[in-house]
């Protein structure tokens, strides 16, 4: 073995060790800074989406700084408008209590009707006998969420209109009747729960205080969120202000023989991410409009279909979440709705929930069969199993925002690997 061979082998071993150490250090940093990854990525993605807008303004002879300031101004205006709209539709304290009473009453009524339950709430039809083991605890949990605490009960009673000398108002008060019926149902369920094994039901008797969670105060939690997410607008501003310095800085670090392959890989990444963003935006808009249209046809009022459509479209940035959002919000409306005006004669208040499921399923089908292949096309081209595992992995590691970023991340990694291999081969480097 010559000295040159030994030196070459030592060099290879050193490079391999350095690469392995780099990978370990990178993984350690990613894990250590994982709370910052998501805000940085969100800021970066929003800046990426806004870049064409800034470029368009710049083309119209608006200086870049002014264009960014204009964009920020529009964002702040939009945020204020949304906050105002949310505040306008948010019910007051009493309104929220009334809403919960109505929802609980409707839930009990529809559940009893669907399952054919008797007064003891323990015997029902065949469907009930099949599913009660799974469904009863679930419905009990929803009941617990909607049930009033003793303080809320007192607040509700005090809010009801009273006649002369503090006597209750003359005439029936529908909400008070609903509330009484709810209390009866909850008591009945509590009695049943005492007679059943502990695992069967999780119901809490009416008036019992809700379980308290030990942990941070809401203010401390908000402080944590703000301190972590403050980096997001900073990243957004810096990336939007950048006029190519970052790309040029990256390429400057690349050796000359890798310059052209790196240029092509970056172009491929930019194209893939751009295609994905544009396709996803269009798909979200189409899904939101379709869900809104279908829900209008089955009788949901227009102002609610617009809200559900926007919510569905926005949720669709996470795979399969648009479907879940449409279904949950549609069913929530079906639970609360007392009068509906469907355009189809076969829709009634009894089968309304089923029609909501049909409408949402049809919209989802349309999305999968028409919108996704046409609009998103080959922009992502990932196997559904990869999508599911990616989304679940993102959720496990980084929570809900991890789900949001899972697919763009997988897309970037996929393009990075395939494009790098293609370029290295084309330039005879491997």
């Amino acid at each position, binding site marked *: 073995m010559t000295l040159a061979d030994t030196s070459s082998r030592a060099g290879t071993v050193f490079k391999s060790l350095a690469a392995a150490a780099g990978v370990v250090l990178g993984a350690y940093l990613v894990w250590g800074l994982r709370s910052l990854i998501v805000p940085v990525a969100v800021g970066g993605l929003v800046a990426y989406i806004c870049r*064409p807008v800034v470029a368009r303004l710049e*083309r119209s002879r608006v200086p870049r700084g002014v264009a960014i300031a204009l964009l920020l101004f529009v964002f702040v205006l939009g945020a204020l408008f949304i906050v105002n709209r949310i505040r306008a539709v948010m019910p007051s304290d009493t309104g929220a209590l009334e809403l919960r009473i109505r929802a609980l009453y409707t839930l009990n009524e529809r559940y009893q009707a669907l399952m054919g339950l008797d007064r003891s709430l323990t015997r029902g039809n065949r469907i009930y006998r099949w599913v009660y083991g799974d469904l009863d605890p679930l419905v009990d949990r929803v009941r617990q969420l909607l049930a009033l605490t003793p303080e809320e009960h007192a607040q509700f009673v005090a809010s009801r209109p009273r006649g002369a000398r503090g006597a209750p108002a003359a005439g029936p008060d529908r909400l008070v009747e609903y509330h009484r019926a709810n209390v009866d149902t909850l008591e009945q369920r509590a009695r049943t729960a005492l007679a059943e094994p502990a695992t069967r039901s999780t119901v809490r008797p009416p008036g019992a205080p809700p379980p308290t969670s030990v942990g941070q105060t809401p203010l401390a939690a908000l402080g944590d969120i703000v301190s972590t997410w403050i980096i997001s607008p900073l990243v957004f501003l810096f990336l939007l202000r950048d006029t190519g310095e970052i790309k040029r800085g990256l390429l400057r670090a690349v050796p*000359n*023989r890798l*310059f*052209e392959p790196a240029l092509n890989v970056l*172009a491929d990444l930019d194209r893939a991410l751009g295609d994905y963003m544009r396709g996803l935006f269009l798909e979200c808009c189409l899904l939101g409009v379709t869900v809104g249209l279908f829900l209008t046809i089955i009788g949901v009022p227009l102002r609610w279909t617009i809200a559900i459509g926007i919510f569905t479209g926005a949720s669709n940035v996470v795979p399969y979440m648009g479907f879940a959002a449409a279904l949950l919000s549609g069913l929530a409306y079906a639970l609360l709705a007392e009068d509906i005006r469907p355009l189809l004669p076969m829709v009634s208040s009894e089968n309304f929930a089923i029609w909501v499921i049909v409408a949402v399923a049809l919209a989802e089908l349309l999305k999968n069969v028409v919108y996704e292949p046409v609009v998103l096309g080959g922009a992502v081209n990932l196997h559904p199993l990869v999508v599911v595992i990616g989304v679940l992995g993102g959720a496990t590691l980084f929570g809900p925002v991890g789900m949001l970023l899972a697919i763009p991340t997988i897309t970037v990694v996929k393009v990075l690997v395939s494009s790098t291999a293609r370029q290295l081969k084309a330039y*005879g480097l491997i």
Partner: protein
Amino acid sequence: MFGPVPDTAVAEKRRSLVDFLKQVTLFEDLSRRDLRRLARIVHERDYHDSEYICQEGQPGAALFVVRRGLVEVVRRGSSSTEVPLAMLEPPASFEESAATGTESVRWFSARARGPVSLLALGKSDLDALSVNFPPLANKVLMKLAGIMAIRFQILLDAQYLKESGEHPEATP
């Protein structure tokens, strides 16, 4: 103390880059504003003596402008020896076809003769320019087309002269 604020090193560097770009034939029709915009996207590369800038048989992804030093254009001959074709000096440009995305492989190699500084404009940079600033990209592409047409004409003339030299009786 109350005089004009001194320029930063970055601004100074960018101004000198803009001044240089103005001398390049490819960009001579651009306004100062366009040149400043272009200066933001070109890549500055340094090569040492004998280092290959681009190699024959590889695909092209960027056009290059010689800023400092000399670049030798060579081509492999029949016995695999390199035949020198031309020596380029500032502000010459080469590999224009790569920037237009013709996806052809290179028929020549370019090598640094001594330390060389180049400016590179990638095809992807030109694509981005077409999306964000179409009039500017249009001016650059028109000039590129013009330069390529002239080179093609020179090549045809050279070929014609060569053939007429080989068969003098066939020329009119």
